[in-house]
């Protein structure tokens, strides 16, 4: 056999074997991986919308997904909004909840970010940042409180807390939320989503 055909043969065979092999492995792990990803989103939703059990995608576009959340008894629990935007370094993906009337923010959590560890990355864990997102007014523009305060009552309803040394990241999160809220309001105005209960199917 000539060298050339041997080269082709070997590589093709190796490709074949590895393709088959990998397909097998993928088959075994695929489901779990999908579950993992699913679980991550579900967990995020649970954090931002109390009592959410069943979610349906209401609206989807690049960088913005709106879920409607039901309690297990079928009552509307609220809405969860997954949004992506630029942060200090790179993209931030976050999830925040809206109450049934789409007028109040019920909570916020960060799904994915690449901010500076130790600095901007505090947006994922800083209690005085995350927990102070509850009960924010979602009808207008939110603003950042700087320097940060210690307890939620110190904030106005239209204010969110900042993080020392991560002011910029806090501001970016705020910006993402503000932008998505605007879009949501636009969608409501267009009638694409409504705050009242819908009878799907």
């Amino acid at each position, binding site marked *: 056999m000539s060298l050339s055909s041997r080269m082709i043969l070997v590589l093709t065979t190796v490709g074949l074997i590895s393709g088959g092999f990998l397909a097998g492995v993928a088959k075994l792990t695929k489901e779990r991986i999908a579950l993992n990803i699913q679980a991550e989103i579900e967990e995020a939703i649970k954090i931002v919308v109390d009592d959410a059990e069943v979610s349906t995608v209401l609206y989807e576009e690049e960088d913005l997904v709106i879920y409607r959340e039901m309690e297990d008894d079928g009552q509307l629990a609220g809405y969860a909004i997954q949004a992506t935007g630029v942060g200090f370094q790179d993209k931030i993906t976050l999830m925040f909840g809206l109450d049934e009337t789409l007028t109040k923010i019920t909570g916020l959590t960060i799904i994915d970010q690449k901010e500076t560890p*130790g600095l901007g990355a505090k947006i994922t864990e800083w209690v005085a940042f995350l927990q102070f997102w509850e009960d924010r007014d979602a009808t207008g523009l939110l603003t950042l409180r700087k320097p940060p305060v210690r307890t939620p009552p110190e904030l106005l309803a239209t204010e969110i807390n900042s993080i*020392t*040394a991560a002011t910029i990241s806090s501001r970016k999160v705020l910006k993402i939320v503000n932008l998505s809220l605007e879009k949501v309001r636009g969608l409501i105005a267009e009638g694409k989503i409504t705050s009242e209960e819908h009878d799907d199917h």
Partner: protein
Amino acid sequence: MPDSEYMIRSSPHFKDKDSVPKIMYTVIIALLPAVFASVYYFRLKAVVLYFACLVACLVTEAIFLWIRKKPFQSLWDGSAAITALLLAMTLPPDLSLDLAVIGSVVAIAIGKQVFGGLGYNIFNPALVGRAFLQTAFPVAMTTWIPPVTLHVDTATFATPLGNLKFQDTVVHGTLAPLKDLFLGNTGGCLGETSAVALVIGALILLTKKTIDWRIPFGIILALSAFTGVFWVVNPDKFAPPSFHILAGGLLIGAFFMATDMVTSPITPRGTWIYALGIGLMVGLIRLFGGFPEGVMYSILFMNTIVPLLNRSSRPRILGERRRPQ
């Protein structure tokens, strides 16, 4: 024929009296007005910081000299003392001493000695120390206190540049007054606040020709031009060049840090590019970057380019054709 005692050496047999320690001590003297100014504005805190940095730098330097078996006299050549002073002058007045010490050790060890000591370092040692601290302890490094002369009673306080960036002071018309910037009656790093004291020192260096005038001139020129364009187009949004020159670390950087001979180019053409580059980058960072102040990053960044500048900007030798080939 007896062994002779005459000295055998290469010409020249005359030597100018200036020496490295003399240059270094001139710089230290030129720094003193700013040191005194900072002691006036920040009192004991300033004294303690200077002292901590000086001791830490000298001890680190001594340890390295000892390890590397180099002559101990060079401890007193003044370069480590300058590094200590300049590092201290670029620290927030309220910084705790352990951080100042860490910064000093890094400045001398990582900034200078790993490259072989005086004369060989690529980056400005004091700024390496500061950049390290800035990145390692960002909160402490951006916590400011007001000078005692301001008689304000706030726990936190912001620098004029910080306010410019985060509080939109131009829009609100609350930009710090130039007079305060000039005298140093504002928040900021120890040594950067008082423009007048720095200018006095700068004049000493310029008249003694210790520093290359092109560097401060080029930096200020580029920064003024850059910020000036934006200011002229939209004075309601952008601060005037005079503010940018007097605020923050620009003056200390332009006169005392960018001019560090070891880390600046050796050729005139390279020096111009270096200086203009620093000025431009300071403008970029202040106007569009993530940080309120960019002098440190600009100088460090241009430091990395210096070797290339040196290589590519060899002066035209007398008699060399103007355009090769």
